[in-house]
């Protein structure tokens, strides 16, 4: 189990805060990071930069979950992996890169699929959860598990040239289910909308932008930043000007089935069934550029 420390070592101070002559708020903040554990679910396009920056940044413990193996045609945007690790589990590969940057990093790879049978047990061990997955069923699973365990869930998503970022179940803000009590029709998820559309070249960088912002938001949660006092939802459109739009988001809904005042859900459910098939319908990976 993760052991919380009382102080930074001199080596950590040197590495993460050497330039700060007076040990003021900066070192306290670094210590807050050091005493927190982060779980990234997904080591693909979103999880790669999130893991790189959190892992290199001196957090207490970083868990990384992914059942997939590194594939040559993911490397262009999953930049934590390398070509000679094709076939290696992505969580393991991500941990290797982090160790090369910071050998003393406490990184734990989990080379399996998170599902209703194992999610609670794993999430319980971490303070801050980062949803870097790629399908709606797992998004419901993670949000529900975070509600049941009282953990904040930093959620990022990306498709084509668009990305979205928000924090669920934090500071009296909404959970995923508050926003989406009912899953969208399977036909609206993933490929169907895309058919036949010749858009501008799809930008591989979109998950990268959202993933690094997920790391930032997770750190702000760890620090208790007042910038997170009001729930908000960041909308990124890589090919628009302006690229970013921030939406003021609803709070927790009293009538929410899981985080509401009288929840009807008290345990995890079958999310594939709940999402009515759109679960397995993973986002079509037709990104190019």
């Amino acid at each position, binding site marked *: 189990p993760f052991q919380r420390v009382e102080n930074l070592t001199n080596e950590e101070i040197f590495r993460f805060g050497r330039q700060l002559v007076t040990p003021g708020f900066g070192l306290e903040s670094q210590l807050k990071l050091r005493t927190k554990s982060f779980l990234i679910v997904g080591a693909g396009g979103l999880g790669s930069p999130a893991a790189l920056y959190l892992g290199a940044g001196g957090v207490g413990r970083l868990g990384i979950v992914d059942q997939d193996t590194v594939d040559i045609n993911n490397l262009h945007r999953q930049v934590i992996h390398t070509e000679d690790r094709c076939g290696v589990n992505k969580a393991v590969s991500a941990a290797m890169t982090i160790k090369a940057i910071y050998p003393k990093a406490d990184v734990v790879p989990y080379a399996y699929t998170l599902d209703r049978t194992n999610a609670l047990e794993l999430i319980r061990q971490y303070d801050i959860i980062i949803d870097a997955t790629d399908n709606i069923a797992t998004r419901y699973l993670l949000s529900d598990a975070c509600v049941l365990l009282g953990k904040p869930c930093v959620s990022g998503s990306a*498709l084509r040239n668009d990305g*979205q970022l928000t924090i669920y179940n934090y500071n009296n803000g909404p959970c995923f289910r508050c926003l989406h009590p009912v899953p969208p029709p399977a036909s609206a998820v993933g490929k169907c909308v895309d058919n036949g559309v010749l858009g501008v070249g799809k930008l591989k960088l979109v998950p990268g932008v959202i993933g690094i912002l997920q790391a930032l938001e997770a750190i702000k949660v760890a620090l208790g930043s007042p910038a997170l006092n009001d729930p908000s939802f960041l909308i990124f459109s890589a090919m628009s000007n302006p690229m970013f739009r921030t939406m003021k988001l609803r709070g927790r809904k009293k009538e929410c089935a899981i985080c509401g005042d009288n929840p009807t859900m008290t345990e995890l459910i079958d999310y594939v069934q709940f999402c009515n098939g759109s679960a397995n319908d993973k986002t079509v990976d037709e990104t190019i550029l």
Partner: protein
Amino acid sequence: MSELTINVEFSGGMELLFQNVSKHTLKFPSKNENGNPSTLQDLIFYIRDTMMTEKKDLFVEKDTVRPGILVLINNTDWELCDELEYELEDKDEIVFISTLHGG
């Protein structure tokens, strides 16, 4: 004023339902056919009936937007306004955004 200027934007893939055009500026009557102030629901029906020829079910389900679409009224979640009953004002910016699940 008998006509409102409403800026409508589609995002997160919604624009693919509208010839891949994100931003639309509409002239919209300030009163609906019942003589009441025009609401967001009137706007949604107008969009469905005049701006779409197919796949209408990817925008509207029953009397509201389909599950998975967030609506922003001047950059604020419509749940913080009056949702469908919100009375449109001149120069409002209404964004329909499909929530994404990819990674």
